[in-house]
Structure formats: C-alpha cells, structure tokens
C-alpha cells in the first residue's frame, strides 16, 4: 500500500509537469495581450473570451480547423484501408521481398521531410491536386501507412490463424471474412492505429503547409498570421493553440480503452 502511495505521488508530479505548460497556454488565451506582456499573473486578472471570439467569428480562422480535420480524417481512413490488407499479408504470408518491403516502408519515416517538400509540391501540382485535402491526406500516408502496417501487423499476428481458416472452411470469401469477421476482431488494434495516424497527421505541418494555399489550408499555417510586422498577437495565438488540442483530446477520449487494453493483443 505504501508502494501505491508513492506511485500515486510520482505520477501526480509527472502529470503536473505535463499539464503546467498547457495550463500556461490556457490562461494566456484568456488574457489580453496587455496583461500577457505586462506583469506575470498566475491566472487571468481581466478574463476575456475575445481571443476565442476572433477565431470563432472569422471563417478564414476556423476553416483552418475544419480543413485540418478533413484531411486528417481522410488520412486515417486511407491509412487504415490500405494498411489493413497489407498488415494481414505481412502477418500471414511469406512472399518474395516481404522483409525488404517492410523495412522499405519503415524507411519512409526516416526521410527528412524538408527536401521532399518541393518534389511533393511538384508531384501533387502536376496531377492537379494542389491545395486539396486529399493531397495532404495522401502525403501524410507516407509516414502513417508504414507505422500503421507495423502496428496492425502486431495485432493481427496476435489473432490465431485458425480464425481465418475456420472462416474459409465455413465458406467465407476473403473479402467477406475480412470485413465481417476479421476487422471486428481487431478493432482495438484499429483503434490504436487510428489514434497514431490521427496523431501524426494532426501535428504535422511542413507537408500540409506546402501542399495547400487557400482551400485546404491547415490551422497550423493560419496560426502563423498571429505573427506580423507589428508584433505577435499572443492571446489569439494561445487561443488557437488551445483549440488545436481539443480534437486530439476527443480522439484520445474515444480510444482510451483501446490504448490500454488493445495493445495487450498487439505487437507487444
């Protein structure tokens, strides 16, 4: 029991460490720029929602969130759609070049993004996808798909092959088995994978910014407008920052149990 108390204390300290910077961002978003730059205050002296009002009343602001959410969702869907069969193949079959393909997929996470930006821009422009959500979604697949395949492969390996065989024996065709039987069985894995895909797509900015100009502009790019030749609009920046956390919070809320229990079956 003593142990548990010590643990509780330790984890509390760590969570405070995690939350403090976020707290600071949060209270900043409720302060006026005047107060932010003036004396240091631990909570807003003149509580204001004006910073949020700026974002919520201006479509060119809030559209950024919508754009980001659109391409992130598209990315999650595409990632899962292509990664599931591939992970299944890697987990169940041996085929020419499998291990090399796997490592090659993984190696795409290792390519430094900066230099690939211009080719990416050229590539998507040349097929007329510049400034579309799908372009960003596809580009993010580059680093999300390999990870998804990796994670899912672990989960799928945790499901005995007998399930597949039994389904075939029962007369299921592969697609039908996959959709009706298999996917529900590894839904925790899918939840976890979706979480990771969401996470890495949501936080990425370089590619998203390069591949868009107006119609699909991500929030991260719009946020930079708080920095101008006449100073930084700290309050709005903080409010925008706080709002970028919200979708993530919702997602983690939905997959929390999968993350806790899901991995038990998975790659680990």
């Amino acid at each position: 029991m003593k142990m548990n108390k010590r643990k509780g204390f330790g984890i509390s300290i760590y969570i405070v460490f995690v939350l403090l910077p976020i707290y600071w961002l949060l209270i900043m978003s409720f302060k006026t720029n005047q107060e932010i730059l003036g004396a240091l205050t631990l909570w807003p002296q003149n509580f204001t929602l004006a910073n949020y009002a700026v974002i919520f009343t201006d479509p060119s602001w809030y559209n950024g969130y919508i754009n980001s959410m659109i391409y992130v969702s598209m990315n999650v869907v595409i990632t899962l759609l292509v990664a599931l069969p591939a992970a299944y193949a890697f987990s169940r079959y041996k085929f020419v070049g499998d291990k090399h393909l796997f490592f090659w997929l993984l190696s795409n996470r290792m390519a430094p993004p900066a230099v690939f930006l211009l080719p990416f821009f050229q590539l998507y422009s040349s097929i007329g996808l510049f400034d579309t959500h799908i372009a960003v979604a596809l580009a993010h697949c580059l680093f999300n798909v390999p990870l998804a395949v990796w994670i899912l492969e672990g989960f799928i390996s945790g499901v005995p092959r007998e399930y597949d065989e039994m389904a075939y024996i029962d007369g299921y065709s592969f697609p039908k088995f996959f959709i009706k039987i298999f996917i529900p069985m590894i839904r925790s894995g899918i939840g976890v994978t979706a979480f990771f895909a969401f996470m890495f797509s949501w936080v990425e900015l370089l590619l998203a910014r390069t591949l868009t100009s107006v119609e699909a502009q991500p929030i991260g790019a719009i946020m930079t407008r708080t920095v101008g030749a006449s100073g930084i609009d700290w309050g709005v920046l903080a409010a925008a920052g706080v709002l970028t956390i919200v979708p993530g919070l919702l997602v983690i809320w939905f997959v929390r149990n999968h993350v806790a229990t899901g991995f038990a079956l998975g790659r680990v």
Partner: protein
Amino acid sequence: MNKIPDNRAWWLVLPVFILVAFSALIPLMTVVNYSVQDIFGPNSAYFVGTDWFREVLQNENLQASLGRQFVFSAAVLLIEIPLGIGVALMMPTSGRRGSLCLILLAIPLLIPWNVVGTIWQIFGRGDIGLFGWALNEIGINYNYTGNTGDAWATVLLMDVWHWTPLVALLCYSGLRAIPEAFYQAAEIDRASRWAIFRYIQLPRLKSVLVIAVLLRFMDSFMIYTEPFVLTGGGPGSSTTFLSQTLTTMAIGQFDIGRAAAFSLVYFLIVLLVSWLFFTAITHLDKEK
C-alpha cells in the same frame, strides 16, 4: 506461427506499395536528380556532378550539427526511455484513474509541433513564462535564449515533455499485456520489486521498447519544428540540428540541389542506424 509462403499476398500489399511508391519513390528520385545539379528554377539547372556531396561531407558546420544531432538523439533516448518506463510503472493499472492518467499523458502528443514550440517558448521566458520566471525567482539565472546550457536544457526538457508520453503509453500497454501469473510467480519466488522489474517487466517490454526507441530515434534525429520555434537553433548554432540546417537550406534559401545532396547523406545515416538497430533486435530474438 508459421507463415504460409504465397506470393499472391502481393495483391494485398499492392495498395500500400502503390501509394507509398507514388509518394516516396517519385520524390526520392527527384531528390536524387536534384542532388547532382545546381537548381535555380524550372529548366534552369546546372549539372555539378558529385560536388554537393563532397561539399556536404567536408563542411564543418554540417559535421558540427551532425555531432550535435547525435548528442541530442542520444540524450533524448537516455532520458525518455527510462523516464517513460518509470511513468508507465507508476500509472494506475485500471479504472477511471487509469483512463484519466492516460488521457492527460497523451495530451502533449496531440499538440501540433509548432504549438509545442510556442508553448515552451512562452513557458520558458523569464518575463512572461511561468517556468523561466519561477527559475529566476528562486535565484537561478536562467535564460534559454542567451545561455547555451540553458538552451540545451530547455530543448531537451521540451522534447522530454513532448515525447515521453509516447514511450510511457507504449510501455503502459506493454505492461498491461503481462499476464498476472508472472507477477504471482515472482511474488511466490520472493522476488524484490527491482527483480520483478528487471526479470519480468523489462524483458516483456522489449518489443514495445523496440518501437519506442526506433520511433524516438527517427523522430528525434529529424526534429525540426519544435526547437526551431523555441530557440531558432541558437544561441549561435548551439541548438542547430541537422534538420534545421537542412530546412533552412531547402525552403529558406531554396538551395535545392545542395539540400538534396545533404538530405541523401542524412537519409543514409538514419537508414544505417535504424537498420543496424532493427537487425540487431530482430536477430537477437532468433538467437539461441
């Protein structure tokens, strides 16, 4: 479980292959093409052969940032992996409190990287940031923008703040996957807390740790946005890592050819390290 040899599995992998090949191979080939030319715009390029590679390899600034990069990645791994394991061990194992911990811990992971940089940039400032202010209040002369040591500490602290939850999350789920019987057996065998960790938890965390270490290595080796927003690589070039040098070159100066050569060298380094690591781990598993 034995895998069935069947080349038809390629059909299942094909979508991934096409998708990734489209997004990876074409740009990669383009980058290779760029790397032997001095590019100024469409149709205005000058063939330079391997000059860029030579320059990149012999450039002292780049070597210095490579060195810093390795130090940074090593530091990140050395801090975050043990800390992440520690946090995972401390997390409540079940129930509402477990979920709550999980959600709170995951927050930093879900914040866009530029916002992470911004948060710490503010948080660390001596005048308007709680952290910098508090340190100065208790008499520590802290200024992350002026002092190299402080800058490093802050960049590391930020990275630890940002990414330790990932390690913790992975480890947490890894720990959940250990059957209760192992703890029972250890208890029966009169194992100490340390022995339980050393002989039960740690070995069973190995596969998640592989993921964690690989991800953390790759991502920390390519870290750009957060330290750029935080310190801009300064003071001087003390926190200028490879990726920042590269990004400045590629999308600041649009010095595409040189940047391409640079990034290929960079890519080869990451590839080698990751491959060595990957191979070492997978082969250790097989070893009798």
